[in-house]
């Protein structure tokens, strides 16, 4: 009996070598992919929040353009419209805007005209809608028509549709990029599994001939690459979180920019990354290894 080797304290060594020289490159590639996936996820979450914010603002408001009729002054027409709208179900507040607001809006189109006040500029009424049961554009229009007011109701539906479409596009693009990155990670793992099996053909053969089932051998590679990918995913997630935190700090109270409001909670999007990376790797390694083992032996 060996003087050094203590049989009672012996623990089985892993069937596969714990470290391979090619692991460094593999970890780097998967970590980069995970980093990009995490940045994508954070970007999509921030964009989604921005779209939801804009949509929420627009759906809660409507703008009414009032044109005076007969001898009625624009201000009187606007006041009457505001009064009519304020009494409509689904409207929280209706407020005729100061004439200066309307002038400000059209000044960029006409230039600095000294007698702008003499022009028949329509007046604006800002309507705040009930958040739970907002009045529709048709209901607002009906309320104005009943008071014989010539007006156009803009419920921002065109903008809302555009923003929602843009938000959906961003989400779709994000999901697409995420799936592409996952597929790339899977392909990298499949390639690494093939290389690993080829490099460790001796182990595969010995285990196989000693009575190991294909699934048992495949699981060795599955666990191995899941660990490598999980570790790489952790590195990628930490890097992405650091970048996200840096942008959040640099962006001040508004996150990255008002257009992309990154919140601190968005950084948590990276948390599932190591697990997802391990799952993708495990699946890719399992499928590759089972197929290869059956053709090798």
């Amino acid at each position, binding site marked *: *009996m*060996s*003087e*050094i*080797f203590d*049989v*009672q304290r*012996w*623990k*089985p*060594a892993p*069937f*596969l*070598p714990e470290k391979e020289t090619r692991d460094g490159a593999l970890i780097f590639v998967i970590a980069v992919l995970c980093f990009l996936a995490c940045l994508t996820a954070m970007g999509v979450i921030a964009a989604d929040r921005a779209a939801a914010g804009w949509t929420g603002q627009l759906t809660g408001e409507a703008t009414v353009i009032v044109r005076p009729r007969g001898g009625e002054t624009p201000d009187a027409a606007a006041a009457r419209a505001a009064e009519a709208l304020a009494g409509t179900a689904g409207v929280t507040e209706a407020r005729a805007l100061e004439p200066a607001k309307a002038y400000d809006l059209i000044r960029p189109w006409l230039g600095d005209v000294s007698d702008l006040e003499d022009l028949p500029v329509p007046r604006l009424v800002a309507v705040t809608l009930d958040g739970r049961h907002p009045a529709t554009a048709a209901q607002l229009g009906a309320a104005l028509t009943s008071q014989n007011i010539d007006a156009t109701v803009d419920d921002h539906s065109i903008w809302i549709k555009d923003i929602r479409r843009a938000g959906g596009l961003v989400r779709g693009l994000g999901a697409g990029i995420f799936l592409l990155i996952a597929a790339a990670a899977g392909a990298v793992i499949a390639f690494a599994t093939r290389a690993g099996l080829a490099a460790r053909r*001796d*182990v595969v*053969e*010995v*285990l*196989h*001939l*000693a*009575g*190991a*089932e*294909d699934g*048992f051998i495949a699981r060795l590679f599955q666990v191995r690459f899941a660990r490598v990918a999980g570790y790489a995913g952790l590195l990628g997630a930490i890097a992405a979180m650091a970048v996200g935190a840096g942008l959040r700090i640099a962006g001040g109270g508004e996150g990255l920019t008002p257009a992309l409001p990154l919140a601190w909670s968005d950084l948590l999007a990276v948390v599932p990354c190591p697990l997802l990376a391990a799952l993708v790797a495990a699946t890719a390694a399992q499928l590759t290894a089972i197929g290869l083992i059956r053709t090798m*032996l």
Partner: protein
Amino acid sequence: MSRNPVAAAAGKFPEDVVRFDDVSMRYGRGPDVLTNLNFGLAPGSFHFVTGPSGAGKSSLLKLIYLAAQPSKGLVHLFGQDVAHAPASAKPQLRRRIGVVFQDLVLLDHLSTFDNAALPLRIAGRKPADYRNDVAELLTWVGLGQRMHAMPATLAGGERQRLAIARAVVNRPDILLADEPTGNVDHDMAVRIFRLFVELNRLGTTVLIATHDQDLIARSGRPVLLLENGRISPKPAQGPLA
């Protein structure tokens, strides 16, 4: 030799642990390396298989340890037709066969002890149940002081004995050895042969492929002679070991 292997092939001994019925084998589209083999190995028997280089000795062993498939005929292991056995049954069949490969095929990243214990781990045994047995076996084959050593640091004879220990640690029903004394000196060859004899006494069926005519002659064991891909049994010659 307990029985005439050809008689066994005729079906008189259906309990044969190995039986070849009209088995031929070729690699790819090449010529047959084994042609119409008919023989059987009774439980507890001890045979040598010999013949010139390229006669198909290693191929014959591969067919038995399920590393190759016949191009024709049926191979039966433990009464089971392996061609029609489900894939899930083959690992169980392999666990009943210990193999000493010609090139040993030790795993260099595992210690001597881990290499020897490998079949037991694959069989799902718990370390506490077998570690003493493995240590005892390694001591028995003269590797008691080398249990922690990595295979790359072992001498040729030590590697050979480790390969043998790994092949027998699971008390297989069949032991196959391909040129097990090819890389060791005469004294070591005799010692290894005595290990096989001892195993055979414990009930293991032994089939050794070798060129060592001196060993065969001194063993007093029956021989399967392979020539030009065909097999012919020869009775035991010389004294029993």
